[in-house]
């Protein structure tokens, strides 16, 4: 039975769909505002969600952004079916990127995606299988405002 104190919603993300990229993270942000979450937490969630969503758009066939919000925490799970990440340690290094020349010309692929997600999370976990897909689990705790 779903917990009454948790709000959950999922947003499909299509690989290669640059025109609509960012929409899921934008909607996550709207919901957080409506719930009255503090501006700093919204900012961190928005950045992490956007980076993760862009990774799906750039590297995967399709995927989904799932958000669950409880009074204690925002949990983002971004799961995709795609090429996967060969070397996660390398991908976690700032500046490392496998983006194509075209993507770089559009301003993506600076090699900051995963590091930026990690920087904005309290807990961060990546699991990936080459040729199958990637799952990113981001947790951001709600600090009680004083």
């Amino acid at each position, binding site marked *: 039975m779903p917990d*009454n104190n948790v*709000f959950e919603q999922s947003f499909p993300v299509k690989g290669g769909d640059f025109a609509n990229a960012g929409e899921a993270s934008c909607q996550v942000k709207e919901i957080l505002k409506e*719930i*009255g979450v503090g501006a700093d937490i*919204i900012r961190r969630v928005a*950045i992490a969600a956007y980076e993760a969503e862009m990774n799906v758009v750039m590297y995967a066939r399709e995927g989904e952004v799932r958000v669950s919000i409880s*009074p204690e925490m925002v949990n983002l799970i971004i799961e995709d079916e795609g090429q996967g990440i060969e070397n996660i340690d390398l991908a976690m290094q700032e500046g490392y990127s496998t983006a194509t020349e075209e993507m770089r010309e559009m301003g993506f692929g600076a090699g900051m995606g995963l590091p930026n997600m990690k920087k904005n999370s309290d807990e961060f976990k990546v699991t990936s299988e080459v040729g199958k897909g990637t799952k990113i689990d981001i947790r951001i705790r709600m600090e009680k405002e004083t």
Partner: protein
Amino acid sequence: MPEQLHSIKIDEGRCVGCITCMKACPTKAIRVRNRKAVIIGERCIDCGECFRVCPHRAVTPLTTSASDLEAFKMTIALPSPVLYSQFGRNAMPNEILLALKTIGFSYVFDEAWLCEMVTTAIEEYLETQDGPRPLISSTCPAVVRLIAMRYPNLLPLIIPIDAPREVAAKRYRTMKGNKHGLSPKEIGVIHITPCPAKMISINRPLGTDKSHLDGAISIRDIYGPILTVLKDLDEDMIIQQSSGVGIGWAMTGGEIRGLNMDTCLAVSGVQDVMTILDDVEAGKLKGIDYLECLICPDGCIGGPLTVENRHLAKNRVETLVKMFGEKTRVSRELVKRQYKAGFFSLKQQLEASPLPPLDPDQTKAIEKARERKEIVQKLPGTDCGACGAPDCRTLAEDVVLGHALLSDCPFMESKNDVLKSSGCHPKTRK
């Protein structure tokens, strides 16, 4: 004048409760209750879209009327540069200013000149002040309100330089008051406006305690009187000081035209403005230093209280800009001095006025978000507006907040009837 919460009101006598304005409202501030449109004050940004679309002329702008001027010993008119674009190809800006004086203002000044000075002040600010970018123009009161409500974390990006109409009012009230020994209260400084939003920035200003203006007369209302006297003007003096740099402010791109930088963007129209602000919030506007955002299509010439077709007006502005040149007549040194003295500065930090969350208690707000999602799934999703809310999601939100009932949706009723009578409904059949 009594203090108004908003610059538009619904004339209940004319309103038939059609849903045209409710559908057009970009911030979902209108509901139809008991067959009349109702504005939800805290959601309204005074953009005037409802006024623009109402087929029954039931949306009334609350601008200053000529009789309000009788309260003052002296009156000063400050016309938006848009006024210069309203009278066809033969009327020159100076003639229009003289016509304005002829119809009864003690003094008329060329607001476009102050626009030109503000351009230089913005340039000075951008060149000398570090900090986050892009900075956003403070000119359009509807944009400032949109940001305060929907994008409160972008408020620090609004450039702390006041709008030209305010700077002009401050300057000329002091100048004429000193010269004629009048107290500030005895002078009525009136903006001639293309939109109702200026009224709200006068009655309920943001970033300052009190506006420097006393009112705003719409171009619509003053168009006829100007046209009448324009043909045979008696007076012959030079009021216009501006070049094309100031006049250009009448339309989109005007504010940034005089800036000597190519990292500036001009965006107009409410949907485009919201899209670009979403992009700023997402950090997508890298390398851009300044954003001119105007709520009306094509900028102020697209204002709801203008008379001339906005495409013709645009053509006229472009012609005037060429005619008076794109080289500023403002002394950079003078502006620098005045800028340092704080002449252009907004007095206070702009205050956020975000919409309240679904519930002040976060745990309850999460519950309500859940409830809303469940209701949205029950509703037909056609966004027909028959319930009196602009779309199904908004009805669901109103239901959760206790402002509406699920049974307000006519489709829900019929759905129940069908379910009752046949035990089956096409939408629920698996």
